């Protein structure tokens, strides 16, 4: 029964995710194609002969109607052909792998740091409510949300890279290049996740089952960190689904600030330089990642909380 409910729920979520993915891919495609300025100008000099221009346009398929270009493009994507960069002829597929690995590394580490710091801090703030611990956590939370991450990045660069000269200013190549970007990316996540953990934990601590567990003599530690936390984590998981998309967004800014050669860095660069095959594929991949991430989060959420599955049936 339990597995069946979850399966049903997953099916419904999927039925909703697929059209969203298709609509998003169309929007991504069109928004980059209606852009002012001929992409041919990104490659050829404005003085190039008309023959050279039309030859290039022909090669890129730009003379076909736009809906046809869309289907050709999506067809190619499904065959693993993501196009080639207009500027340097690199295959977008290989760029995607090369830059994607670095983004995954950065974002993955940031997520790990976020949850390792935020959950214990949030629980601590809830347990020691209205003490200096709680106020300290709330201060971190407020600052973490109010300080723009790119500005925090600059301040950290000033402190650690310039004044103390112990960490690199930006770029990639060693583990030390990762320290500052990971911290900056994690700070905002810590602030938000900690607040949610705290209020969710506070709510759990007021429940009857907690009182029962305490009354039967279970150690305070077990009551809080095992029984309370298990239920308190449900909203944190729900938030994680949303945060996933936002993390990608923040990664983009942090990559630009630290010149970390990841997907976000490449995307901003390709949009500015009008290298539309690269911009298009990267946006498409990021969009699909978000859609898929939300889908997985919904399913995971239903798996931990039976009430959601029940809601889906009614």
């Amino acid at each position, binding site marked *: 029964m339990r597995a069946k409910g979850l399966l049903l729920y997953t099916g419904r979520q999927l039925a909703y995710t697929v059209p969203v993915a298709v609509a998003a891919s169309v929007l991504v495609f069109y*928004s980059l194609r209606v852009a002012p300025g001929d992409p041919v100008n990104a490659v050829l000099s404005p003085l190039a002969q008309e023959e050279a221009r039309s030859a290039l346009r022909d090669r890129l398929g730009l003379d076909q109607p736009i809906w046809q270009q869309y289907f050709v493009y999506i067809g190619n994507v499904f065959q693993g052909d993501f196009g080639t960069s207009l500027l340097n002829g690199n295959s977008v597929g290989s760029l995607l792998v090369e830059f994607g690995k670095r983004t995954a590394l950065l974002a993955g580490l940031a997520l790990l740091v976020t949850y390792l710091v935020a959950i214990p801090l949030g629980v601590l703030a809830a347990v020691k409510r209205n003490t200096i611990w709680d106020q300290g956590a709330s201060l971190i939370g407020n600052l973490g949300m*109010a300080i723009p991450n790119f*500005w925090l990045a600059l301040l950290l660069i000033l402190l650690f890279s310039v004044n103390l000269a112990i960490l690199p200013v930006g770029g990639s190549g060693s583990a030390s290049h990762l320290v500052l970007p990971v911290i900056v990316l994690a700070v905002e996540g810590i602030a938000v996740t900690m*607040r949610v953990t705290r*209020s969710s934990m506070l709510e759990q601590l007021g429940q009857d089952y907690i009182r029962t567990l305490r009354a039967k003599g279970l150690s305070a530690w077990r009551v809080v960190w095992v029984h309370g936390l298990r239920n308190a984590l449900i909203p944190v998981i729900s*938030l994680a689904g949303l945060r996933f998309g936002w993390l990608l967004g*923040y990664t983009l800014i942090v990559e630009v600030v630290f010149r970390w050669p990841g997907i976000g860095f490449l995307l901003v660069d390709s949009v500015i330089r009008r290298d539309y095959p690269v911009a298009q594929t990267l946006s498409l991949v990021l969009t699909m990642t978000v859609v898929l991430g939300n889908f997985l989060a919904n399913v995971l959420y239903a798996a931990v909380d039976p009430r959601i599955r029940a809601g889906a049936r009614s």
Partner: protein
Amino acid sequence: MFSTRRSTHASALALGAERAAVTDIGANVTVDPAAADYPEARAGRARTAEAWRTLASNKLVLIGSVVALAYVFLGIFGSMLAPYDYRAQNLADALLPPFSGGHILGTDQLGRDMLSRVLEGLRISLLVGVVITSASLVVGALAGVLAGYFGGKGDKAISALIDITWGFPLILVAVLLVGALGPGLAAMMLAVGIINWAGFARIIRGETLALRQREFVEAARALGVPRRRIIRRHILPHTIPVALVMTSYYVALAVIFEAGFSFIGLGAQPPLPSLGQMIAEGRNYMLVSHWVITVPGVTIALIVIGLNLLGDGLRDIFDPRLRDR
């Protein structure tokens, strides 16, 4: 059906805890309408006094609100107070530290007065934040009230649209729009609007659903009051408290977003001095003269902290149940 995930847990995610999850702001700023509709004027005065007491009892919130309002004032009248023209260059006086040469906050790399530039940047950042948040609020409130009040297929469609929209990274939408429209504040503002209406719509839809069940709405229906009038006179006014709380959080977020987006070079373009754009321009000089980035940065942080605290304060006033959380 699509909104089950969020709505079931609305109460568990108490407070504005998720407010910085950008779209998730105010998910639980559910305001208890019972506390907000005594008909007697006496009760109204008592409520105002109570509101002041709430505000005064929390020093942090009081300070935050004062800071936020002061910045709004500076944003509106600041350009009149500016000691110099924010565009006036004077290379002989470039990168003067604060409190020197008649420049309270120093000068930037082109010798422009930092104070005048920050005041102008403040005006632009706040204007962007307020304009775009108002637009999102209007669209979101309309969609939310219609979906919540009428229900049915329209509600299903609007709720599905809300779910699709809100969880989507704003920055990605903005980058795509820059691809379509070119860099500038227009693309950035459009992106914020496209995403943020859904945040308002979600919450206001929930409020409307709850209000619809209330006796005074039922009474109005029974008396044959036209639907349009019920919505205008009985539903919309009661969604104002939640909308106010959310607005203060959303303006703060828009300010942060504008700064970040202008910083990576896709938002405000020089010579327009938005706060983020000033930091981007000053970046290359920060090693020798940190004030070119610290002054606008501190300004952003203070506005955002102020607005967030103002939001917390409004929430406490409108929903006494949440006060001591």
